[in-house]
């Protein structure tokens, strides 16, 4: 396994950082400071180096410091002692440019495999309580960064779905012939079928990690697992095409496609019961943490290096026991970045952490 970490980060006219260079520890980096001081901005910059774009916003323009016309983020990476650089710049006139060791990169998956990251945000803690789209997104976000093929299937599937749903409405309103659905159903099945297979395979791979992490986090022996709720199988019909045909009238009436991977869900179970209704809030959070850490371990296995963990403001949401559990498990992975408003939310026992005080766009390392 390659040990990867970001040793240096340079920010120029990025968000509220005019010009900053920071040296990081290869272990745990704690960024603390008041709300609005610029902690999340640092994690966002690292995320951009990893994925080629921000996960917070869609317009690169907003990332540029007010009244400036370009930003630059540059990271110095260390992988088993070998140094390399990643760089992302955005210029209002010329657009975005990604460089790895000075070479231009157009495919963001290449970046990710050099510098994988996993983000952890407070809203992730509601994964079990929230809607099914969040749980599908959990799976899709992992798959799209490791498989170009999956990303293509998913893109095409959503295009076909969009067209099909429009056609369903047209059939109802304008009385178009129902046969018109055939040429879309064909493709829906082709891509949908493959998406489901990819998701099953991913779940099969992360299942053992989930149980192991949960036991460590919760310090209890409940069995934690999940079930993929497949809307196709649920209908007691194993043939996709037959089911779509059976649902055709209902779909036309609703103007919406009722079965397929876009309606599937991930059901989390604790001792064979639904975690959503049976687990306490504390247990639910342990399950989510264990699931996120399973994602980290899975990516490490696939990519041959630990992803960099970006924990944004999650400490304040956890009780003391779970803070301890999370940090001690995170310590076993690669480099970690952790933001918090309260320095003492980070367990003292941690020992090896390096602290950075952030105040209004300036960073001070506290050694």
């Amino acid at each position, binding site marked *: 396994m390659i040990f990867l970490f970001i040793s240096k980060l340079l920010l120029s006219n990025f968000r509220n950082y005019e010009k900053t260079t920071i040296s990081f520890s290869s272990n745990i980096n704690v960024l603390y400071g008041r709300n609005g001081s610029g902690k999340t901005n640092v994690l966002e910059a690292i995320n951009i180096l990893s994925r080629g774009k921000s996960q917070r916003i869609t317009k690169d323009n907003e990332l540029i410091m007010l009244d400036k016309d370009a930003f630059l983020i540059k990271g110095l990476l260390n992988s088993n002692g070998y140094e390399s650089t990643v760089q992302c710049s955005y210029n209002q006139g010329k657009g975005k440019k990604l460089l790895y060791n000075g070479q231009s990169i*157009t*495919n963001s*998956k290449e970046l990710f495999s050099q510098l994988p990251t996993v983000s952890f945000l407070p809203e992730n803690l509601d994964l079990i309580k929230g809607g099914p789209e969040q749980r599908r997104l959990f799976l899709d976000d992992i798959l799209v960064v490791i498989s*170009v*093929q999956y990303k*293509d299937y998913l893109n*095409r599937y959503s*295009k*076909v779905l*969009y*067209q*099909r749903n*429009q*056609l369903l409405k*047209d059939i109802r309103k304008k009385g*178009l012939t129902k046969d*018109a659905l*055939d*040429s*879309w159903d*064909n*493709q829906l099945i082709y891509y949908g079928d493959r998406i489901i297979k990819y998701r099953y395979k991913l779940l099969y791979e992360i299942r053992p990690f989930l149980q192991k992490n949960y036991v460590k986090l919760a310090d209890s022996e409940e069995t934690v697992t999940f079930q993929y709720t497949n809307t196709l199988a649920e209908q007691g019909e194993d043939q996709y095409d037959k089911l779509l045909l059976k649902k055709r009238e209902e779909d036309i009436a609703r103007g919406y496609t009722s079965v397929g991977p876009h309606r599937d869900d991930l059901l989390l179970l604790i001792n064979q019961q639904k975690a959503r209704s049976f687990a306490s809030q504390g247990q639910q959070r342990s399950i989510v943490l264990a699931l996120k850490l399973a994602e980290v371990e899975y990516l490490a296995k696939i990519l041959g290096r630990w992803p960099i963990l970006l924990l944004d403001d999650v400490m304040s949401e956890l009780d003391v026991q779970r803070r301890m559990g999370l940090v001690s498990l995170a310590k076993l992975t690669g480099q970690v970045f952790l933001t918090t408003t309260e320095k003492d939310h980070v367990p003292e026992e941690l020992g090896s952490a390096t602290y950075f005080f952030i105040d209004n766009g300036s960073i001070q390392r506290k050694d």
Partner: protein
Amino acid sequence: MYARSIAQLIEELGKLPGIGPKSAQRLAFHLLFQSKEEVKALIEAIVKAKEEVKYCSQCQNLTDINPCPICSDLNREKWLLCVVENPQDVAAMERIREYRGQYHVLHGVISPMDGVGPEDLKIRELLQRLSNQDIKEIIIATNPTVEGEATAMYLAKLIKPLGIKLTRIARGLPEGGDIDYVDQLTLVRALEGRREIDN
């Protein structure tokens, strides 16, 4: 603010596809500083094209003589027909100078969200042609988008019962591309679209 006639010119140019307000301004001023003769030549070319260009009664391509030069070329195969989305696709096929059959231009693809259904395409004309002419093979060359595929499938359903041989162009690697340098997506699609080699 611009004089009214300039503003109007900018507005008209801005209606063209791919022309934003900035480009429209640039074009407008470019035209204003051209000689009267040059501007007249442009206007005449536009009006002439608009008046003289019609759909070819056979292939539905845009032409100023009917039937178009391709349809009236006696050296081309009469039994082979390639169905494409638009006139640009005919031009692209002709540039490679390998294909010697006929064309049929659909002028679009099926796309419910753009309000385009089969009846908005030149499909009726295609079927009419198939009943009048002795076509033995049809190549469907719509683009490999989901709309292009849906259109290909729709056509296949109509044509199959007629007993005409039907093929679909493969979406694959760009010619001359060294596998190492081909964009990953192109490569996964090429893998996906692989077919059995029959000898």
